[in-house]
């Protein structure tokens, strides 16, 4: 049997090689044939999930609900010390210093990253803003979000925290974070599908043990992860419940 693994399209482009290395490592460990399929955007990845083409996915928390509750995926592991946090930033010389100063018609630059968009829109609610009274421009990358701000084409930009911190220093110094989320429990999670059922326990053994030997540890390094920790099904259900309270 040939399985398919995929990765939430919001992973940093610099980690593409890392995911191929991880896949090679995983195939060797499991003795299975796994093909890594990367999608350009969330929409095409969701189509593949709905077509039952995916067996293993490093999933955005936003998609975890659909994967677990509709497609029978189960949680395996989550990366240690990494949670999805959002930063809403403005251009450094912007007259906006608090969210509450923002007015209806505010121009937002953002990507299609669904959990960052969700968290960021919630952080705009204190200004009485919602999808109904803002103008949203969706661009392909966080660098382009920054560019929209610097060129005065947007008033605020939504960033994944790690992506914001990964911007070049020159760009970052021309931006100013307005508000940062501190939610902690919204996290990417590695989920395995029903066809891989027989290997779920093996995955639960292999992944947390990666830090134990130097070879596997170098695989983690190439992914930019400190390690994997097991994620129980109930932890995932809890995160999904939480996400559920945040979407209308």
């Amino acid at each position, binding site marked *: 049997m040939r399985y398919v693994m995929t990765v939430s399209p919001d992973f940093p482009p610099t980690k593409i090689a890392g995911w191929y290395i991880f896949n090679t490592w995983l195939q060797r460990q499991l003795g299975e044939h796994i093909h890594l399929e990367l999608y350009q955007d969330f929409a095409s990845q969701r189509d593949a999930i709905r077509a039952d083409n995916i067996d293993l996915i490093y999933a955005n928390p936003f998609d975890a609900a659909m994967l677990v509750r509709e497609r029978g995926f189960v949680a395996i592991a989550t990366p240690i010390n990494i949670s999805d946090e959002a930063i809403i930033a403005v251009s450094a010389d912007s007259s906006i210093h608090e969210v509450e100063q923002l007015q209806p018609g505010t121009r937002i630059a953002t990507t299609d990253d669904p959990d960052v968009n969700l968290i960021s829109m919630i952080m705009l609610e*204190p200004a009485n803003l919602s999808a109904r009274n803002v103008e949203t421009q969706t661009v392909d990358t966080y660098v382009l979000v920054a560019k929209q701000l610097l060129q005065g084409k947007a008033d605020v930009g939504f960033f994944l925290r790690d992506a914001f911190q990964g911007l070049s220093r020159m760009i970052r110094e021309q931006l100013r974070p307005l508000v940062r989320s501190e939610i902690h429990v919204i996290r990417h999670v590695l989920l395995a599908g029903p066809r891989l059922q027989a290997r779920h326990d093996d995955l639960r053994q292999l992944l947390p043990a990666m830090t134990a030997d130097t070879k596997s540890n170098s695989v983690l390094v190439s992914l930019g992860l400190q390690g994997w920790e097991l994620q129980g099904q109930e932890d995932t259900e809890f995160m999904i419940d939480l996400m559920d309270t945040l979407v209308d």
Partner: protein
Amino acid sequence: MQDQERFAMDDMKPENVQEPYTTHLLHYYDGTSRHVLVKDEEVPFPEGKLIVSRTDLQGVITHCNQAFVDMSGYTEEELIGQPHYILRHPDMPKAAFKDAWDTAASGQKWHGYVKNLRKDGRYYWVYATIILNVRDGQPVSCTSVRRKPSRKQVDACIELYARMKQEEAALMKQEVR
């Protein structure tokens, strides 16, 4: 859903609340009551955070996050095992919570603005969502997530809730007669 008899919670303690404050007697759904001490001082919602708690089907707190603990003024040990009405503020109309319970019990999401009472008598406003947690088709618990509310909506609620409280008081008087 709420139908368990329990011991009354202790009155709020003057040593935890700085003067000036007012004293109110609250009657809870389970027939118990306690005195709460209330100050007219708001604590702002923490920027960028979510206040999260989970309860059993009777509304007893089973889990809460750090933001919840910090904003309530209680310790986690003081909160776990207590009914969620530990945070009930006398300015909140009963009807708001009845609606929350009815909506959540029917499996729908409830949203609303809530004024909560802290251990130190101060208050904080939240925009709350409550959902029923369903596992294998069975309701097992409730989750509530609160976020920073818009001031405009809070101001509207202050008026609305004051009117609702007046109506509730008028109804009580009629019943007594």
